[in-house]
């Protein structure tokens, strides 16, 4: 599903990723681990077309990202759900409106939006809070809203960059369980984290990055 061949990325001559080659299968749950600056976020940015590699090739579902025209990048992103550490919710829009955004940009009908948003909110257990505004929610709830927004249009994969960075261990467990249930429905999940609590709870394949290089592709548990 995702293939990287000898991918390198530089920021002002500083090496962010060095000759990375890896493959992620459809339906996999992969942890990208490493210290800050190891290249985890860069790798995720490359996968959503926010950055382009200086060297190498990235294939998503057999399609080379280097050959995508700028107008095709939004189409790619509609197939990928993104969860960020700082949630990136719009404070002046209700929970419902926040979650419906990916459907709105695709031009979905009102009926479809209502159905899918309700389903997504139900799957994260927050359908009863759809009329509230994000600042009125706890951090755990905000992250779950962010996850609902990422899965509302049924993406083929979900990328999460430090999704538990702002959460306590209890909330971290909740979020990881949520990811596992989403993964169980067939969505490929890649979680970038440096949190050992996540590793302990996930028990799946771990790719360890260090200074832009893949240093381990450990298969923890099938």
């Amino acid at each position, binding site marked *: 599903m995702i293939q990287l061949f000898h991918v390198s990325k530089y920021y002002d001559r500083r090496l962010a990723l060095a000759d990375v080659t890896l493959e992620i299968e459809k339906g996999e749950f992969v942890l990208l681990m490493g210290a800050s600056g190891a290249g985890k976020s860069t790798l995720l940015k490359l996968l*959503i077309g926010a950055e382009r590699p200086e060297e190498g090739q990235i294939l998503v579902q057999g399609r080379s990202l280097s050959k995508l025209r700028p*107008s095709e990048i939004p189409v790619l*992103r509609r197939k990928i759900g*993104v969860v960020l550490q700082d949630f*990136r919710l*719009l404070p002046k829009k209700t929970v419902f409106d926040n979650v419906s*955004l990916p459907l709105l*940009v695709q031009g979905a009908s009102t009926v479809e939006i209502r159905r899918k948003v309700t389903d997504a909110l139900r799957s994260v257990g927050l359908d009863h809070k759809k009329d509230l505004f994000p600042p009125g929610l706890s951090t755990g709830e905000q992250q779950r809203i962010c996850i609902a927004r990422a899965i509302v249009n049924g993406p083929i994969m979900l990328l999460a960059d430090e999704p538990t960075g702002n959460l306590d261990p209890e909330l971290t467990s909740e979020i990881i369980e949520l990811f596992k249930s989403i993964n169980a429905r067939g969505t490929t999940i890649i979680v970038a984290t440096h949190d050992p609590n996540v590793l302990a709870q996930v028990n799946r394949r771990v790719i360890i990055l260090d200074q832009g290089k893949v240093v381990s592709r450990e298969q923890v548990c099938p």
Partner: protein
Amino acid sequence: MYLLREAVANVLTNRTTTVVAVATTAFTFACVGVFLLLYVNLKTLASSLEQDIQVMVYLQDDLTEQTRSEIDLQLKADRAVGSVTFVSKEQALADFQNQFPAESHLLQGLGQNPLPASFVVTLAVESRSSDAMRRWAHRTQSIPGVAQVQYNQEWVEALAGIVRYIEVAAIIVGLILSAASVTIIANTIRLALYSRREEIEILGLIGASATFIRVPYLLEGAALGFLGSTLSLAILKAGFELFRHEIRSASRFLGVDALLTFFPFQMCVVLVCVGLFLGCAGSFLSLLRFGEGRA
């Protein structure tokens, strides 16, 4: 519908900036409008004066009847001539005495009629510009038997000159102030973009196309341009009516107020459309500089 709702939300979120932008845009458009109004009115005045201008073709005193008829025929055959009326020496004297009864004794003292016979010529509509009139007068002057060709040349040419200057000034001022309006609107949109940059980033992240992101801001720019130009027309109309009222109440400008005209409806529509277009252009510039959709 969503995009329209977002555009309205943009305007409402930055209410003060929007009001200031509309007011400033209206003021700049109104400045351009003053020049345009001056131009339109002078142009109307010039064409109405051209309408009234008659050219006097004075004849030499010793002309035979045949030569006079030949000149008459030649003038009537000229495509630049609309109408020709002959005024004999006697008629000219009678007219003078009618118009200036107090001065008629001056001519009686001379013993003979000093006034020449003439043709009063009204030129065809297409030949009433100052250039065409000058060319025609020069040509007619060379006809044998014609003593002099006279018309109010200086007045016509001066007016044409003023209209030309106003036209050039209106274009220059229009261009400068239009650029100013575009800049004002561009800055307003830039503020809106800056205040909503996080939302724009999120939209980009979830797969919104560049068009989807841009449309609300283009609509906002168009709305600012539309409101600015409409308000400027309202200001101009109010100013125009005030000016006309003043002119009407000043007795020495009697009848001048009837010559004053405001922009016709079609021109008002064009001006509003220009405002709308400039608003869109301002937004577009800001969006280009902001560089959304590249991420």
